[in-house]
Each structure stands twice: as structure tokens, then as C-alpha cells.
């Protein structure tokens, strides 16, 4: 809501009031209509459950649906707790797909309410979208929902919920944190009349990467393992229970450190030959500086550019459509050091050479 008036988000009632005072209009209504209009053809075959009034009902009616509204205590200006309570009710009702509209703050609310218990999909309308749970635009969200509800997109993907501190952002600093993973539908695009089948699933790709990385590990090195579902697959392959969101340390295929912060990392890595295993985080392809700030410029420099092992599924890389991976370590010299081509492990005995920049 706050984007066009330059507020960088509207988390919290004071900012929201300020936004309204500056003449901001909620984008969510139009975005919802854009998305729902794609679902019109399913009008008679799905039941649409929504929140009353501006939280979905109005948009649904305008798209020709006769929605069933859940009860809510929300006032004219809706809040984060309204979102959470609505999501919980939807979960209790056992809906097949929860569509939500907003930005990173909304994604966090949904995640806090339902976790990975149900399949959800974000319609992007927020100022900050670092989370990968949003479709690239409302129309695409509608398309994906349309396919999923008809059983044509059967696959589900774990996507990152990220958020940055809005106060920091307003002061010009970005500190994105990884909060968890929501389950979203994803469509594996088929080749029509083609010579080949469809690409491998995300889970298969992660397992293939895990095999490759595990096979190349050597007892001479300590391995710093960054957050993400791809690196988690590597830990699973090693039969280790690491932290999904934190930084872990592995030596001789044993877990020797868990959820380490910058200071602890520097202390533990002192005098040791170290490699770092990381995967791009979020939908924008950030390697450093989003969701893994523990890997500070000091830590990166200590480990050394040549000891960075990047792993990522082809699906994730290809969804960037050739845009480079990004680093934003907070230190320009470190960013410049990391600028260039890197080898990225994308499968078992498969790698790509890809550009990293800042």
C-alpha cells in the first residue's frame, strides 16, 4: 500500500495511517480482481471462501463469484492479526488452496498462522517482495491457481518467506531475514509435440545436487552450510539434522556447529581450511545479504572466494531468465570481490557457469 507514496511498506498501524494521509490507495483490490478473473471459468466447480468486505469478498463478487465469507472482527482498516486469524480459519476449514494478497509482511503473517500445513499462493501487491511465495504478477497467480485447482499443476514447492526490517529499509539498509517456507503450487511446463519429456522435479534435483556435493566433500575441510531447502537436502543426504534457517558447520560428515552467528563462525573457523556451501535465497537470486547475514564480509573473506561452493536447482536458476545472481554483503569491496563467473552445482555430475554481480 505504501509504495507509490514512497513509504517502503506499511507494516504497523502508524505507518498505515501515514500512508492513508499521503493519499495511498490499497493496490490489493485491483490485484485480487486481476487474479480472480482468471478463475471465472471455475465459478461453478469450486467453492470460494473469503474474508468479508475489502479482505476479499468485494473483489470476489465483482468477479462474479458467490463467495462464502468467514466471520471476522476486522474493522475498516485491516491488520496483521486479521490476516493471521483469517488464515487459521481457512486452514481449519480445509481449503485446497489459500490465495493471499500482499507483500513480505503478509507472507510472514500467513506463515506464522499456517506454516507448511497447507498449499498457499501469493498475489503480489506489496512494496517489498523478497519472498518467493508470490507469483510474478496477479495474472500468473490466477493462471497457477486455475491449473492447481483442476489438478493440472500437481507439484508443490517449498518457497522462501523473507522479510526485511522496514525501519532499516527506510534508512537505506536492507537486512532481509529468512523466516521459513510456505508450500506453493508450481507448474512444470510441458513441451508440446516435442522430442523430450519435462524437466526433473525440484525434489529430484535437490537430491541429485546433494549426491554431488556429498561425493566431493573431503575430510580436510570444514564445511559451512548456509540456509535453504537445497542445502537442507545435502544435510539430509549426510544424515545430519541441521537448521533450516541458520548456518551450520560440518566436518568429516559430522555436524560440529549449529545455527552459528558471525562471531561464532569466525571463532570456529580460525586456522581451519574451510569451504562454504550456499544456495541462492528467495525469488530474486540473492547469494549473500538476504536471509544469511551471518555470512558477513569478514566470514566470506576468511573462507575465500575460491572456497565457495554454490548449489542451486536448474529450476531456480532458470526462473531468473538469465539475470545474474546477486550479492549485497553490506561491504562494497567484498561485493566487488565476488563479482564475476562462478561454477554452480545443478545436479549429479552437472554444473553451470553463471554470473554473480552486485
Amino acid at each position: 500500500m505504501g509504495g507509490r507514496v514512497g513509504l517502503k511498506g506499511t507494516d504497523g498501524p502508524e505507518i498505515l495511517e501515514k500512508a492513508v494521509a499521503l493519499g495511498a490507495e490499497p493496490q490489493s483490490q485491483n490485484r485480487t480482481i486481476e487474479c480472480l478473473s482468471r478463475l471465472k471459468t471455475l465459478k461453478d466447480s469450486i467453492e470460494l471462501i473469503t474474508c468479508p468486505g475489502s479482505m476479499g469478498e468485494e473483489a470476489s463478487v465483482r468477479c462474479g463469484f458467490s463467495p462464502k465469507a468467514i466471520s471476522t472482527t476486522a474493522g475498516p482498516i485491516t491488520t496483521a492479526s486479521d490476516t493471521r486469524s483469517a488464515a487459521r480459519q481457512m486452514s481449519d476449514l480445509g481449503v485446497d488452496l489459500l490465495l493471499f494478497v500482499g507483500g513480505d509482511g503478509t507472507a510472514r503473517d500467513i506463515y506464522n498462522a499456517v506454516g507448511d500445513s497447507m498449499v498457499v499462493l501469493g498475489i503480489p501487491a506489496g512494496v517489498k517482495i523478497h519472498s518467493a511465495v508470490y507469483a510474478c504478477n496477479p495474472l500468473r497467480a490466477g493462471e497457477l491457481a486455475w491449473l492447481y485447482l483442476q489438478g493440472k499443476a500437481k507439484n508443490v514447492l517449498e518457497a522462501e518467506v523473507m522479510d526485511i526490517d522496514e525501519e532499516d529499509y527506510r534508512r537505506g539498509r536492507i537486512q532481509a531475514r529468512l523466516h521459513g517456507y510456505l508450500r506453493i503450487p508450481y507448474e512444470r511446463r510441458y513441451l508440446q509435440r516435442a522430442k523430450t519429456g519435462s524437466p526433473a522435479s525440484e525434489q529430484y534435483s535437490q537430491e541429485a545436487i546433494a549426491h554431488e556435493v556429498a561425493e566431493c566433500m573431503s575430510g580436510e575441510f570444514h564445511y559451512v552450510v548456509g540456509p535453504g531447502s537445497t542445502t537442507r537436502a545435502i544435510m539430509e543426504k549426510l544424515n545430519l539434522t541441521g537448521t533450516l534457517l541458520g548456518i551450520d558447520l560440518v566436518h568429516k560428515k559430522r555436524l560440529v556447529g549449529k545455527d552459528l552467528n558471525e562471531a561464532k563462525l569466525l571463532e570456529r573457523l580460525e586456522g581451519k581450511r574451510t569451504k562454504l556451501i550456499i544456495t541462492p535465497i528467495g525469488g530474486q537470486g540473492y547469494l549473500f545479504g538476504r536471509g544469511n547475514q551471518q555470512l558477513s564480509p569478514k566470514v566470506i573473506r576468511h573462507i575465500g572466494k575460491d572456497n565457495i561452493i554454490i548449489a542451486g536447482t536448474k529450476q531456480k536458476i532458470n526462473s531468473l531468465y538469465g539475470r545474474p545472481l546477486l550479492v549485497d554483503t553490506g561491504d562494497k569491496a567484498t561485493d566487488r570481490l565476488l563479482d564475476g563467473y562462478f561454477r554452480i552445482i545443478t545436479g549429479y555430475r552437472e554444473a553451470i557457469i553463471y554470473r554473480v554481480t552486485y
Partner: protein
Amino acid sequence: MGVDETTRVRNFHQAKWDEPIIFELSTEGERGVIVPEVEEDIERTVGDGVSELPPGMSRRQAPALPEVAQMRVLKHFLRLSQHCLGADLNVDMGQGTCTMKYSPKINEVLARSPKVAEVHPLQDADTAQGALEIMYKLDTFLQEISGMSKFSFQPGGGSAAILAMASIIRAYHERRGEADKRDEIITTIFSHPSDAAAAAVKGYKVITLYQNEDGLPDVEALKKAVSDRTAGLLITNPEDTGIFNPDIVEFVKIVHEAGGLCGYDQANANGILGITRASEAGFDLCFFNLHKTFSSPHGCGGPATGALGVRDELISYLPIPIVERSGDRYFLNHDLSNTIGKVRAFYGVFPAVLRAYCWIRSLGAEGLKEAACVAVLNNNYALEKIKKIKGASAPYAEGKRRIEQVRYSWETLTKETGVTTEDVAYRMADFGFHLWSSHHPFIVPEPFTIEPTESYSKAEIDEYIAGIEKIAAEAYAEPEKVKNAPYNSVVHKIDNSTLDDPEKWAITWRAYLKKHECK
């Protein structure tokens, strides 16, 4: 007549027969031909013809073949043929990278002649001198076209030729005692996917270079990829984008300096005949698909030929046999010191070799170059027209000419209307056109690849593009109409999801019955 005056799109409707699979037509005991009983005199002289077979070679159960009468079989296959939209029916420029050009029908007449069709691969070379001469001469033509020193026609298609290149690369490093160390092959994301696949089949790790902002693999990326583990480079140029890599000489040099060999995937060389050659860029190996550039028809997966060429030092690694000449006599040479053995039986698909030979002879050197020039001209004419269509774009190399094809994008159309490249492809079938999205992965968003070749007239290119134009306009006006297409084709929409389900997919009727629990 027949064509809409304003849109210039045909009022097309394909036949729809709902024809069952031939196994479903089977009636026990039904026969196409009743073979006469063996007469007593004959049986007394030669036996029953079956009991002489070694026990291990005769099957206990008869094969479960469909039992169908002649006329029904004929009808079955005629109906299936009407379900197809072959290269000779439609303006087949929508299957970019495949080089769907005209295959002159006189060459089919020659290929069907008993002199060709009845040549047996095991007959004495002295009785097949004409066939061997044609193979030998096609080899010399391709040497001139590529700058390589010797060709083998054994590989049965492009992927088999790539596999042969990867096999030669491995054998070369084995001979030098470096095969264990050199375990990586480099390719690019816009090269044919088989360049990566064949390398993987040979046990190589595959390193793929992604494109830079110009759509090309970057010299800096290649430098990052090479090491003492590099076995070789397998690369297409121009790539699937139709952009020619101007740094190709440096690419080859960098890989050579790292100790690797360089194989040029020239499956499609249609835009560069007589203009540039593999040898000029320094390549060690290359191959041509005779069914692409050299007009032999695409046999729907075979029989085909991936003509594999190597420079001098690698001739001894070629698959055996190769055709050679001694004085006036042509013969098959099975004696090559480092040969990789065989990638297929015998010496290659002779009818494909014959058609390529005839095509080259009918055009001559100047004609080949002219074919390439016209293919490039047609492509750039199409590019200028397609760029103007609302919703379409041609990513990369802004303002530059392309070679023989262009990978376009419907990214804008999809963003603005929700209509995807698959939707457009389905709708094209309603006008009697074939449009193919592209090889995975979809690096170019919502891709489609157009390659007009030299075969099509301006009028036909215009007609095809009119189809694309009409659908783009429909997407903006009534997207649902495009999304629900096709309407005039054989089938409506195919459920592709079984392609991902090992419990469901079946490539034989027996597997189908087993997996789908039919009787």
C-alpha cells in the same frame, strides 16, 4: 478462394477419425495374407523349415501381433496419416532448429530404386561399387564443406554423432593416459541438449555455460570452466538463438590450451554453407545431420545419418568401417588403429547418404552458398515482421541480423493476456500450421523458434506469419479463445501429466496393458 482476404489465414480443418490403436483392431485369426500350405514334395525335400532351428532360438509363444485384414490395415494407416501435419502439408517453419526444408521428390524415386533399396550391407564390396562411390564422394564433398579430413556415415542421427564425438574425445584422452583426470565436458545452454546428454552418457561431468546479456556464452565464463579436468567442448554455433558466436575461434583456442578437444555440433549448418567452416574455427570434430541441412527427410526419429567428420590426427579414431578408395576400386576399411568401434551397425543409412549426395550435386558449390544466403534472408525477413507483432519479441542481439533462425519470446503477450507459448502453438494447429515452443529449459521466457529455411517463398512466409499475427490479436481481444484451442485439429488437448508418471507412461502396448490394468 479458401483464404481469408483480410487475415490471409486459411479456413482449415483437419480430419478426425478417432481411430483406435492397431492392437485394439485385432480379431483372433484374422489375416491380411493367407500363406499357402507347404506342398508335400517341398516339405519332403527341405523339411518343415522350423524344426531345424536351434531350440534356444524358437519362441514358445507366438508374438502378440495384431491380427487385422489387409483393407483394414490400409484404412488404419491412411487415417493416421490424415491425423498428421507433415512437412509437405504445412508451411513448416515453426519447428526452428530442425531445418524443415523441402526434400526433392526425385531423390525419393532414386532412393526407392532397387539399386539402392536392395543393397545389402553384407554383400561383397565388388558388387556394390556404385553405392560405395556415392558414399566416398559425399565424404569428399563434406570434407570441402567443413574443412575436415574424413567422414563416417555410421551414426544414425545427430545424437548418435554427438555420442561418437564424445567417444572419440574419451578414446583420445585414454590413449594419452589422461582419461581419468579429464572428466569434464563443457557445453552451452543454447547448444542442443544432446551435447550435454551424450557427454553424460559417456560418464562425463557436464559444465554448461549460460548466456550473457548479448545472449552469447562469454569468454570469461569459459575461462572459469576450463581446467586440467577439461576433456572437451561440444558446442553449437550459431546457437539456437540464431546468433553466431563471434568469439568461436577464441573458445576453441582456450579449450585447446587446456588440453581438450573441440567438437562442433553442426546438425544444422543451414545458414553457413560456403560461408564459414569448422576447420577455420579450429575444431577437431564436427557433424552434419543429412536430414537437416542436406535435405534428406526427417524420418520421425530415423532412419537418418549424422555425418561425422574429423581432422587428420583423429581419423584413426573413427567408427568402423569407413569407405576408402584404392585406384579405381572402393572398399570398406575395418582397420583403424584407435577406432571407437561401432555406434551403429554397418556403414550408415544409404538412402539418406544418396539423397544428400543428389542434393549437393544438383546445387553445386555456388548453389549451396545461395541456399544458405536465401535461408538467412528469409529468416531476417521473418524477424522484421514478427518483431512488429504485438506481444512478441526477439531477445538479445538488438538491431543485429540473425543467421538461420531466431528464438522469439511471448513474454509480453503472456504478461498482458495470460496466453502462453503453448496456447499459441495449439491455436496455430487450427490454421494448419505447426508451431513448436523450444527445447527446455525455457531460458527465453515463453519461447518459440522460427526457421524459414531457403525453401519457402515470400508468400508462404507471409501466410505463416499472418497466422501468428491473427493469434496475437486474438490473445488481446479474446484470450479464452486462444487458451481453449485447438478447435479444428485431430484432438483437443492432450493430458501430458502421464509423461511424468512412471506408473502411467508406456512406450509399448504390452506396457500400457500392464500399467493400466486392462485385460
